[in-house]
C-alpha cells in the first residue's frame, strides 16, 4: 500500500512467499508484546500516510515463507469515530492484507470478540491469537478453543505472548490459512434492518465504480449507521450526488445501537458455548488500586513516584554527560589548535563541535526520561496517575484524560500535543493543547541542569523540581482562565480502561526510549545544527578583527537591541540572544550561551566561563530558568499546535500569552529577589 511496505519487502531479499499480516486488537491485550515477540528488533517505525500517528512495521523470516507484519492502533471497534479506528479500518480495507491477526485477552473474551465480529463483517481473513491464557487460568475460567474457533469461523491460537508461548503455532496457522477464503460471518439483524440493508445493497450493486474489495453488505451496514467516513468513500468513487443523497437517507440514529446490540447477542451466544466463567474475585491489581487511588494517599504516592523518577534521571545521566563532555571538549580543542585556517578551525571547533556537544550532552537525561516514563506506562501506573489526578483536574474544568498529555509533555510537547486526540470533546482538547507547553519538556532541562547545578549546588535537584511544579501551576491557572473565558462549558465524561499491573520489561522500555530519543538525535542533526552554525556566524561577523562572541559582533547587536525589554529581569544582551535563539529550539539556549561566553565546546568549559563571568549570578540565573520554563518551547511545538488546533489565531495566542507570562514571572522572581536581598 505505501512506499514503506515495499521497502520492507525488499529487505526480505529471498524469493520465498511473502505474507502480509496486520495485527489488530483492543488496547491492553498485549499487542505490542506480541508484535515484538514476532518481529524482534527488526522494526520500522514511520507514520501512517497523512497523519502523525506512529506506524510500526516488522518482518519475520519463517520456515519457507516471510511475514510482513503491521501493527494497527489498538481499538475497541472499527466504527471510524476516532483517528485510530479510521487508520486501522482503512488499512484493512486497502492494505491488500493476506491475514489479520486479532490478539484477544482471553480473560476478557466477550468484549474482545466485538472487534472480531467487525473484522469478519469487513471480510478480513482473521486468525485469533488468544493471549494471556495464564491470566485466564488464574481466574479459574476456561475457554473451549475448538468451539470458539468453530462458532466464530476462524482459527484460534492460544498463547502467552509475554513468555513467547504459542508464537510458532501462530506463524504456522497464518501460513496455513493465508490463501484460503474465509466465509464472512453473517450476523442477522432485525427484520426491519435486514430490509433496509437489502434496499441499500441493491442500490450499491448498481454502482459500477465501487471497487471489488468492498463487500456491499458491509458498506450497507455502515451507511445505515450514518458512518461518518462513508460519504468520503462515495465521493471518491464519483458516485452521483442524487444517489449519495438517497443512500444516506437510509441512515437512522437508532440503527447503530441496535446493530451493536445484535452483535453482542451473537457474541453472547458464542461465549455461552465456548467460555466457562470462573468465580470473580478481587485481584492483586484491585488491592493495589485501592491504595494508589486512596483518597489521601493517592496524590502523595504520585508525587513521590515522580520525585523518584527525576532522581533516577539525574543519577543515571551524570556519568554519561561527563563522558560526552570530555570527548567534545577534547575534539573541539583538537580542531581549533590543529586547523591552520583560523576561521575554519573556529567554525568547526567553536561552532559545530562546541555547539553540537552542548546539545548532545543532554541525550543521556532525555533518554533516561523517556525510559522512566515508559517503565511507568508499562507498569500500568500511569493510568492510575490519570485516575488520581482526575479529582484535581475536575476542579479546573478538565478530567483525568487531559492529564496523560500533560505528563507526556515532560518528555516532549510535540507527541504530548498529538496525544490529545484521544480527547473527544473539542473544548477539552483545545485547553489541553494550549496548556501543554507549560509542562517542562526534556529540552528545557539542559538550561536547568546547567544553571541550577552552577549556582544552587546541593539544592539543584530541589530547584529543578520547584520549576516543574511552577510549570504545572501556570498550566492549571491557564486552564481555569481559558475555561472561564473562551471555552465555557462542561468537560466530556471521563471513562478509561485501567490496564492490570505488569512488571515492566527492560527490553520494551529500552525500545521505547530509543524510538522516542531518536527524534531528539535527529533534531540535533538538523535544525539544531543549522541553528548552531547560524549563531556561530552571527558571533563571528563582521569579518576580521572582532573577538569571537564579543561585544562588537552582529550577535551582540541583535541582543543589545532587545536588551532594554529584558533588563528588568536581570538579563544582559548575551542571555537575550540565547533566549531569542531558543525560539527555534530550547536546546539551543545552552549552545548559544556556550558560543557567546566561550568555553571551548565542553560543558565544563561553559561552566567555568559562566562562573567567571559577572553577568551571571544566582538570582538572574533563577529568573532565566523561570523564563526558559514558561516561554514558547520551540518551532516544532508551534507547528504542531497549528496543526492540531487548526487555527493560527490560537497558535499565536499561545505564543504571545506564554511569552508574556514568562516575562511577568521572571520579572517577579528577579525584582522580589532583589528586594528581599537574599544574597543571591
Amino acid at each position, binding site marked *: 500500500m505505501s512506499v514503506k511496505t515495499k521497502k520492507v519487502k525488499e529487505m526480505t531479499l529471498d524469493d520465498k512467499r511473502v505474507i502480509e499480516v496486520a495485527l489488530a486488537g483492543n488496547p491492553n491485550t498485549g499487542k505490542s508484546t506480541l508484535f515484538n515477540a514476532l518481529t524482534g528488533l527488526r522494526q520500522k517505525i514511520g507514520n501512517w500516510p497523512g497523519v502523525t500517528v506512529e506506524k510500526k512495521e516488522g518482518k519475520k523470516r519463517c520456515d519457507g515463507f516471510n511475514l510482513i507484519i503491521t501493527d494497527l492502533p489498538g481499538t475497541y471497534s472499527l466504527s471510524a469515530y476516532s483517528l485510530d479506528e479510521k487508520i486501522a479500518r482503512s488499512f484493512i480495507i486497502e492494505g491488500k492484507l493476506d491475514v489479520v491477526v486479532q490478539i484477544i485477552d482471553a480473560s476478557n473474551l466477550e468484549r474482545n470478540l466485538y472487534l472480531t465480529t467487525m473484522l469478519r463483517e469487513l471480510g478480513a481473513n482473521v486468525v485469533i491469537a488468544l493471549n494471556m*491464557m*495464564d491470566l*485466564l*487460568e*488464574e481466574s479459574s475460567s476456561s475457554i473451549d478453543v475448538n468451539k470458539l474457533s468453530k462458532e466464530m469461523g476462524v482459527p484460534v491460537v*492460544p*498463547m*502467552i505472548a509475554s513468555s513467547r*508461548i*504459542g508464537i510458532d503455532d501462530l506463524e504456522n496457522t497464518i501460513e496455513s490459512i493465508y490463501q484460503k477464503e474465509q466465509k464472512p460471518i453473517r450476523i442477522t439483524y432485525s427484520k426491519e434492518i435486514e430490509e433496509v440493508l437489502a434496499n441499500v445493497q441493491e442500490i450499491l450493486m448498481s454502482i459500477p465504480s465501487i471497487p471489488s474489495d468492498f463487500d456491499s453488505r458491509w458498506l450497507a451496514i455502515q451507511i445505515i449507521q450514518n458512518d461518518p467516513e462513508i460519504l468520503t468513500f462515495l465521493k471518491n468513487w464519483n458516485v452521483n450526488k442524487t444517489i449519495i443523497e438517497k443512500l444516506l437517507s437510509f441512515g437512522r440514529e437508532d440503527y447503530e445501537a441496535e446493530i451493536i446490540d445484535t452483535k453482542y447477542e451473537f457474541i453472547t451466544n458464542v461465549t455461552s458455548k465456548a467460555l466457562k466463567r470462573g468465580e470473580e474475585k*478481587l485481584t*492483586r491489581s*484491585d*488491592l*493495589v*488500586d*485501592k*491504595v*494508589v487511588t*486512596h483518597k*489521601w*494517599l493517592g496524590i*502523595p*504516592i504520585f*508525587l*513521590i*513516584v515522580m*520525585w*523518584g523518577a527525576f*532522581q*533516577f534521571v539525574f*543519577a*543515571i545521566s*551524570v*556519568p554519561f554527560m*561527563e*563522558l560526552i563532555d570530555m570527548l567534545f571538549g577534547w575534539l573541539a580543542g583538537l580542531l581549533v589548535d590543529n586547523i591552520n585556517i583560523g576561521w575554519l578551525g573556529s567554525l568547526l571547533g567553536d561552532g559545530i563541535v562546541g555547539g553540537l556537544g552542548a546539545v548532545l550532552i543532554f541525550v543521556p537525561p532525555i533518554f533516561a526520561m523517556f525510559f522512566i516514563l515508559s517503565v511507568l506506562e508499562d507498569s500500568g501506573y500511569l493510568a492510575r496517575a490519570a485516575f488520581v489526578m482526575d479529582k484535581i483536574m475536575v476542579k479546573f474544568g478538565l478530567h483525568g484524560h487531559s492529564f496523560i498529555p500533560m505528563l507526556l509533555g515532560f518528555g516532549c510537547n510535540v507527541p504530548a500535543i498529538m496525544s490529545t486526540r484521544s480527547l473527544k470533546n473539542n473544548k477539552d482538547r483545545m485547553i489541553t493543547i494550549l496548556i501543554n507547553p507549560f509542562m517542562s519538556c526534556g529540552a528545557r532541562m539542559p538550561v536547568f541542569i546547567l544553571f541550577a547545578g552552577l549556582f544552587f*549546588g*546541593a*539544592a539543584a*535537584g*530541589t530547584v529543578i*523540581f520547584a520549576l516543574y511544579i511552577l510549570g504545572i501551576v501556570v498550566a492549571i491557572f491557564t486552564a481555569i482562565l481559558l475555561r472561564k473565558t473562551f471555552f465555557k462549558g462542561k468537560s466530556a465524561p471521563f471513562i478509561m480502561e485501567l490496564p492490570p499491573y505488569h512488571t515492566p520489561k527492560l527490553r520494551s522500555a529500552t525500545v521505547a526510549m530509543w524510538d522516542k530519543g531518536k527524534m531528539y538525535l535527529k533534531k540535533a542533526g538538523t535544525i539544531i545544527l543549522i541553528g548552531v552554525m547560524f549563531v556561530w556566524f552571527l558571533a563571528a561577523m563582521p569579518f576580521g578583527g572582532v573577538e569571537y562572541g564579543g561585544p562588537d559582533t552582529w550577535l551582540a547587536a541583535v541582543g543589545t537591541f532587545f536588551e532594554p525589554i529584558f533588563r528588568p529581569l536581570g538579563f544582559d544582551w548575551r542571555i537575550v540572544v540565547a533566549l531569542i535563539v531558543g525560539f527555534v529550539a530550547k536546546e539551543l539556549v545552552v549552545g548559544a550561551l556556550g558560543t557567546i561566553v566561550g568555553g571551548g565546546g565542553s560543558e565544563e568549559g561553559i561552566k567555568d566561563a559562566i562562573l567567571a563571568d559577572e553577568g551571571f549570578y544566582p538570582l538572574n540565573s533563577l529568573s532565566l530558568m523561570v523564563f526558559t520554563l514558561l516561554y514558547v518551547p520551540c518551532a516544532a511545538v508551534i507547528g504542531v499546535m497549528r496543526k492540531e488546533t487548526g487555527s493560527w489565531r490560537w497558535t499565536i495566542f499561545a505564543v504571545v500569552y506564554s511569552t508574556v507570562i514568562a516575562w511577568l514571572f521572571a520579572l517577579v522572581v528577579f525584582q522580589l529577589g532583589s528586594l528581599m536581598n537574599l*544574597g543571591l
Partner: protein
Amino acid sequence: MEMLKNTSNNMKTSLLAGSLIFLVVAITEVILGAFKIYADSKELEEHWVNAIPFPPGIFTGLAILIVSLVWLVGYFVIKKDQNANGYLSVGTILALGFILLFILILITDIFNAYALGLEDYENWTVLASLRWIIFLSPIPMFFTIKYRDLIFTRKKKTSALQS
C-alpha cells in the same frame, strides 16, 4: 480460621512497627534537612548536622514519610478486619524502589568519584552513599521475605497450553 487470624495479627504488628520506624527516620530527615538548607544558606561550614550518620534531605524524608503512612493506613485497615495486602505491597514496593534508586546512585557515585575523578567528589566516601541503603533496607527486606507471596506474583507453571 485461627491461622488466618494469626497471619493478620502478625501483619498488623509488622505494619505498625515498620511504619513507626520509618516515621522516626522521616521526621528526623525533614527537620534536619530543613536545618541543613538553612545552615548552608548561612554558609556555616562546620555544623552539627554534618555529624548525623545519614545525609539529610527534605524530599527523601517526605518519600520515607509517605511509605510510612501507607503502612500506617494499612495497619488501621487490618484493625477494621479488612484486607491490607495492598498497603503492605505498595509500601514495600515503593521502599524497594527507593532502595534500588539509592543503589543506582551509589554505583554512579563510585563511577563519578573513581573513574571520572570529578571535583565534586573530593570529600565523598563510599559510606556517604551507602548509609542510605543500610538505613532503608532492613524493614522492606524483612517484609519482602516474610510476605513474598502477597507482594509479588510468582510465575506459576501454566498448564493452559500444554494440552
